[in-house]
């Protein structure tokens, strides 16, 4: 589905170019669940923005379904790290979710029903008539997630979507995400700082590191599906993966320093 080849990201500051990412290569097959982990500031958000077609890499190619991405393409949606600013303050909670469904051809009634369903699944049903600025940080984040899920895009790019959530809500939403992913044959690219979460959710984990950032390794995750919060995490393979990835992260960072 996604195919990224020798991609480079650079910023120009005071006529000096600083290279953030270099020679990044990886693929995301259709229906795959990819997690991305890497130190803070390594370029995960920039990478996701390029994949969403919001920015262009300085060089290299990003292909989505075999076409070069130059602008946001239909079927890809993104949950932003800066969730608070990505909500429309003049729309209600329900309005924000409905806005995400603008491509749907359903009737108004049906749309509202679906939207309310998604709100309920993130625990915001009772706040549907509030405005985003009346929500707590975690609620805003859940709203952004609900909107992305409601949009029905076949590919979800999620940038630390659960960062502001408590453990319980987080676990619930992880399972919700997995359920939706399994149902709809969606592709998910998931940026997180929580290695456990990355392992719990994904088919493979892309570890970034170094300076400029490159792909340290793509770790395949063969844990059986469906997964369970307790059982899966208790699996010895889980700890193995965790150790591997932590090791990669540490080596990547030391390389960077």
């Amino acid at each position, binding site marked *: 589905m996604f195919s990224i080849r020798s991609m480079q990201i650079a910023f120009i500051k005071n006529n000096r170019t600083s290279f953030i990412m270099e020679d990044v290569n990886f693929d995301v097959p259709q229906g795959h669940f990819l997690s991305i982990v890497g130190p803070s500031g390594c370029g995960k958000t*920039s990478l996701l923005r390029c994949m969403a077609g919001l*920015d*262009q*890499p300085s060089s290299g190619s990003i292909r989505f379904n075999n076409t070069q991405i*130059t*602008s946001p393409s239909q079927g890809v949606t993104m949950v932003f790290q800066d969730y608070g600013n990505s909500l429309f303050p003049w729309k209600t909670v329900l309005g924000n979710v409905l806005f995400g469904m603008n491509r749907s051809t359903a009737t108004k009634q049906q749309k509202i029903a679906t939207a309310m369903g998604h709100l309920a699944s993130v625990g915001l049903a009772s706040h549907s008539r509030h405005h985003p600025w009346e929500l707590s940080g975690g609620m805003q984040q859940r709203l952004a997630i609900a909107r992305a899920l409601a949009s029905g895009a076949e590919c979800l790019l999620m940038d630390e979507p659960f960062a502001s959530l408590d453990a319980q809500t987080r676990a619930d939403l992880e399972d919700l995400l997995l359920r939706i992913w399994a149902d709809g044959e969606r592709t998910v690219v998931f940026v997180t700082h929580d290695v456990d979460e990355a392992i719990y959710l994904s088919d493979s984990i892309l570890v970034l590191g170094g300076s400029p950032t490159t792909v340290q390794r793509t770790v395949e995750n063969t844990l059986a599906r469906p997964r369970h919060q307790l059982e899966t995490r208790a699996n010895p393979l889980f700890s193995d993966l965790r150790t591997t990835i932590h090791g990669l992260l540490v080596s990547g960072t030391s390389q960077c320093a």
Partner: protein
Amino acid sequence: MRRADMRRINWHGIMFCVAIAAAWELLSTLQIVSPRLFPPLSLILSHLIDLTVSGTLPQVLAQTLLRMLAGLIAASVVMVPLGIWAGRSQRLWLLISPTVESLRSLPPALVILPAMLLLGIGNSMKIFAVFFAAAFPLLLNTMDGVRAIPLMFIDTARTLRTGNRTMLFEVVVPAAAPGIFSGLKSAVPIAFIVAILAEMIGGTDGIGHFLMKSQRSFDIPQMYAATFATAVGGGVLAVILNCVESACLVWYSGWKRFSGRDCPPFPATNHRNTTKDRS
């Protein structure tokens, strides 16, 4: 990058101006409208050049600009602080709003009448008229600029126990600067217009008086030439103001992530190279 942008010649703009000029010339020479009242552009331009070379137009324009500047500076000095204060304090706004709201829709032409009685017929009256007209756009835009400051900025500053001075100069003013600049951009042409108007109603010099004199003596091409001069003068003012704005608000365009371009990107336009350049 910014500098390169400015050096680039705006061919579209020039072509559009040329098209308008051609339409004008045709309208007049084909006598579609009375060429006495709507003389051909070429005639106006020749007048414009003559008057400029002889120094008449630059002189009257300078007189008007000086008056405008005096009034504008006075208005900024009074109204920007007042606007900031009123934007921060609902109480003050409620106190002055009936007065402000009733005064601000008085036409400057009406205000000039009592102003003449109180301030005479000289420069001070004209400067006051400019002040009066420029004051309200400045006040309202500043006030709304202050109100639009994201509350988070203020809260942050408060928890850092910022003193009033620091709060004002390092938080409120920079954060409201886009609004203040909008106010200035609205106020400058108004100030210019009112300076001209005041010179038309009772004056002995300045471009407004020159315009009126040309009109009264039926020197229509000269009247148009003077009108053109005001357009040029105003255009220059606008350009200067835009430059000052972009110099003062570098952070703003950067914050908005589209440095050098201030348009929201449509999917079709290729805006995305703006922050991440090919290197």
